């Protein structure tokens, strides 16, 4: 009979070894991706431009409607919630400041990232995972084509470009949502609202939001690709890997957000 301690530490050790292996595999994937995105183009083997453009359309362009609608609603909700408190203080005009800063610094990037994690992060895991299950990844390798260069790099480039771009759209539409609610329901004068937004919003608010968005794009791509490449068995594993890719990438987005928010708080 094994003692409780033996069982406990045994399980703990296996878990630790397992996550250590996961960490090792992740860093290898990041290394390889970095090599094929940055180093190898410098050595004269360019990235796949056409595939990157099609990824831009799939992950970026096609997300514009949903990102816009959600950002618009969130802008309205945020303005209403702010008004609920500020009205009591007789400082209704500060709704503009609050909406402006929260959307650009925080909600724009994170909403966009969560939507894209659900749409594209899962799609990456499913695409790569089903290719893995059907030996298509093996076929690429056997043709002397690196699967990371072929599959991951175009997605990464698209995400690094499109997550900030989508965030700009979300910022714009979100601000408009707040504006729309304030001038209609709250009766704030449009020019006052715009002036207040302009005076409280600083370049760095928008800029830090875009830096975050860029980092979220990288995280979502790596998580999706990692989960895809982890598929060993058949179709049912593709399903479970796809699910974990969404859960883990949303988790990673929040962790990165925390990190950057703390960083920017002390930097500025």
């Amino acid at each position: 009979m094994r003692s409780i301690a033996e069982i406990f530490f045994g399980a703990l050790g296996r878990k630790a070894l397992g996550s250590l292996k996961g960490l090792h595999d992740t860093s290898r994937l990041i290394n390889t991706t970095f090599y094929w995105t940055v180093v190898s183009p410098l050595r004269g083997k360019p990235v796949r431009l056409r595939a990157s453009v099609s990824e831009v359309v799939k992950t970026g362009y096609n997300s514009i409607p949903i990102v816009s609608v959600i950002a618009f609603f969130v802008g309205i909700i945020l303005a209403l919630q702010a008004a609920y408190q500020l009205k009591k203080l007789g400082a209704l005009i500060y709704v503009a400041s609050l909406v402006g800063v929260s959307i650009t610094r925080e909600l724009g990037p994170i909403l966009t990232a969560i939507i894209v994690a659900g749409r594209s992060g899962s799609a990456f895991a499913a695409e790569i995972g089903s290719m893995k299950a059907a030996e298509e990844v093996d076929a690429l390798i056997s043709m002397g084509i690196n699967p990371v260069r072929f599959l991951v790099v175009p997605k990464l480039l698209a995400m690094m470009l499109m997550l900030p771009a989508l965030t700009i759209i979300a910022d714009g539409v979100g601000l408009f949502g707040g504006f729309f609610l304030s001038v209609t329901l709250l009766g704030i004068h449009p020019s006052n609202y715009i002036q207040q937004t302009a005076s409280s919003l600083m370049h760095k608010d928008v800029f830090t939001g875009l830096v975050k968005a860029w980092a979220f794009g990288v995280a979502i791509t790596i998580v999706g690709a990692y989960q895809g490449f982890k598929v060993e068995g058949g179709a049912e594993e593709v399903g479970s890997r796809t699910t974990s890719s969404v859960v883990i990438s949303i988790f990673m987005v929040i962790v990165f957000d925390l990190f950057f928010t703390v960083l920017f708080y002390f930097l500025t």
Partner: protein
Amino acid sequence: MTEMEDAIKVNNLVTHYGDRVILKSISFAVPRGQTTVILGGSGCGKSTLLKHLIGLLRPTSGQILINNGNIAAMNEGELDEIRKKMGVLFQGAALLNSMTLADNVALPLREHTKLEDSTIQIMVRMKLDLVGLSGFEHFFPSQLSGGMKKRAGLARAMALDPEFLFFDEPSAGLDPVTAAGLDKLILKLRDVFKMTIVVVTHELPSVFMIADYVIMLDLGDVVFAGTLDELRISEHPRVRMFLERRPETEVYSPEDYFRFIAGD
């Protein structure tokens, strides 16, 4: 010398999946310009061996010499150079589902050559014609039957006019007529292009049709290596069992078996 020169030599190859040993120190040679069939029961490690021969998996120990270079000790860059000389047809054809047939066949050419696109188009049409799929350029893999997929996979494997062709279970899942058609195609490739062909299979009719040389695996060991005629007269019990399609002899008596499944 030219007749029996070895294109591939495997020395003391040992492979594991995790802690489980799959191939226990096997050695054999594949003659150049001939069709070698690797034969064996399900799960004996044929696909695993094939994945080592094409450099997809790294052995635990041992050498795999291809044109006298040891691919077990090569880095990815060197391996990629060797891989350009190899064509592989996977068990499920493994065409890229997101691309048309023409793009699938063109892929190795686009990646590894600097040919004009018009030249590539012509070469693609030639390869598809070779496997009897002309006119299907713009079809997607999901629109094809299993046999057509295999032939398309073969066209892609042939794209760079490789020196070596590897097949994993070419006739698995095909009806006898289609399978025989694929076998004829394999024979044609050997005769016309003088390629070194390695076929993994457990289909006996196919073996007798295409093989020049046979290697038989059993439980991770080579139990037979020789020509087709030598296979026919081999006295090895496992070979006889396989050729005569005799089932595994019962390991358990009925009482033992009952006790075994009852769990004590």
